[in-house]
């Protein structure tokens, strides 16, 4: 364990964010804390779609729980899918959400786990995803699961996700390149309020 941990994947987090922010522009998105939240929200602001995003400032792992709550709350009220953008470290902190979701089968939920196999922001300590098949666990919990590691594979998956009934789980293997980030300046209350207003606007 006491060594620099690296991988050889070609995709970067920023590559993934660029794809997701375009492919799921008009869907509600809940993003896990730290680097993911800051980088994705900054990108969403540049695209003018920040109100569709809920960035977590803390509560590691609970982006998936909140995503499940949004999906259940929107069921039958919109055709849009609920998107969760998690990281491997955050997702492993709440792995039991998969078993909870298995009982509820939220067909309108898509979970992306951006997996660089480390806790990036704290110095690159390894997570367990280099040792386990996370997608197999998701499949056993009744998710339609895929692992992608190239931009072409990711684009191909995204084109089918909206059409297919879920729930979906997509593990995206990425390298350790860091995306550009900016600290979130909005107040938490304002972030929740604007996200709630956006969900209200898309609910039938």
């Amino acid at each position, binding site marked *: 364990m006491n060594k620099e941990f690296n991988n050889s994947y070609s995709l970067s987090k920023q590559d993934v964010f660029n794809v997701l922010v375009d492919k799921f522009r008009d869907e509600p998105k*809940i993003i896990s804390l730290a680097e993911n939240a800051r980088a994705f929200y900054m990108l969403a602001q540049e695209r003018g779609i920040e109100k569709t995003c*809920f960035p*977590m*400032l*803390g*509560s590691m*792992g*609970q*982006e*998936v*729980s*909140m*995503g*499940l*709550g*949004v*999906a*259940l*709350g*929107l069921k039958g*009220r919109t055709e849009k899918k609920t998107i969760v953008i998690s990281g491997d470290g955050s997702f492993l902190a*709440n792995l*039991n*959400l998969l*078993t*909870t979701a298995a*009982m*509820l089968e939220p067909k309108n939920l898509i979970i992306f786990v951006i997996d660089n196999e480390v806790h990036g922001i704290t110095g690159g300590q390894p997570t367990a995803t280099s040792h386990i098949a996370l997608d197999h666990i998701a499949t056993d919990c009744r998710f339609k699961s895929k692992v992608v590691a190239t931009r072409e594979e990711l684009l191909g998956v995204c084109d089918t996700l909206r059409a297919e009934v879920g729930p979906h789980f997509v593990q995206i293997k990425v390298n350790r390149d860091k995306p550009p980030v900016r600290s979130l300046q909005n107040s*938490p*209350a304002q*972030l*929740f309020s604007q*996200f*709630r207003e956006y*969900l*209200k606007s898309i*609910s039938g």
Partner: protein
Amino acid sequence: MSELPRTQSNSIIQGLEASGIEFVVYLPDSTIQHILSHFNERPEVTLIPVAREEEGIGILAGLEAAGRKGVFLIQDSGVGNFLNTYITLAALYQIPMLTIAGRRGGFHEINRANAAFGEVAPSIMEAANLRTFTLDYTVPLAKWSYTVEHGYQYAQFMQKPILLFVNLKDQNNEQGI
């Protein structure tokens, strides 16, 4: 609203029904099972079982964001499992939600392990500056459904999470001891 015999559990049920609850998120405690059984028979209410209490806070936050009415039912020791998410998501983002925690601390407890955290749960919530209310022998049973209903409204008005400790250990005692 259901017409039910006057007991502590039924009073809570009536308060939740008066609030128009659509989702009951729960990690069960034996003292709240009658409430869960009641809503299990109601097709208009969706029950959401969670494996750990912090999940429930996240799910309730999502339901609130989607404009739906939910409540969270737990054992009071569950406070220890959800405290981080309660503070860094529910309280920080000013998300209204109502949690009802069945008391294992307090009168009529028979299990010392359950009581170990239950005894300190109210103090922990207070130390974290988190708002709670309590239903026990000090509150006349006639006021229980009112408290539940207004607890839900208070959370919405204040835009914050509210927790209601309820002592349901002696179901035969009308005074709620």
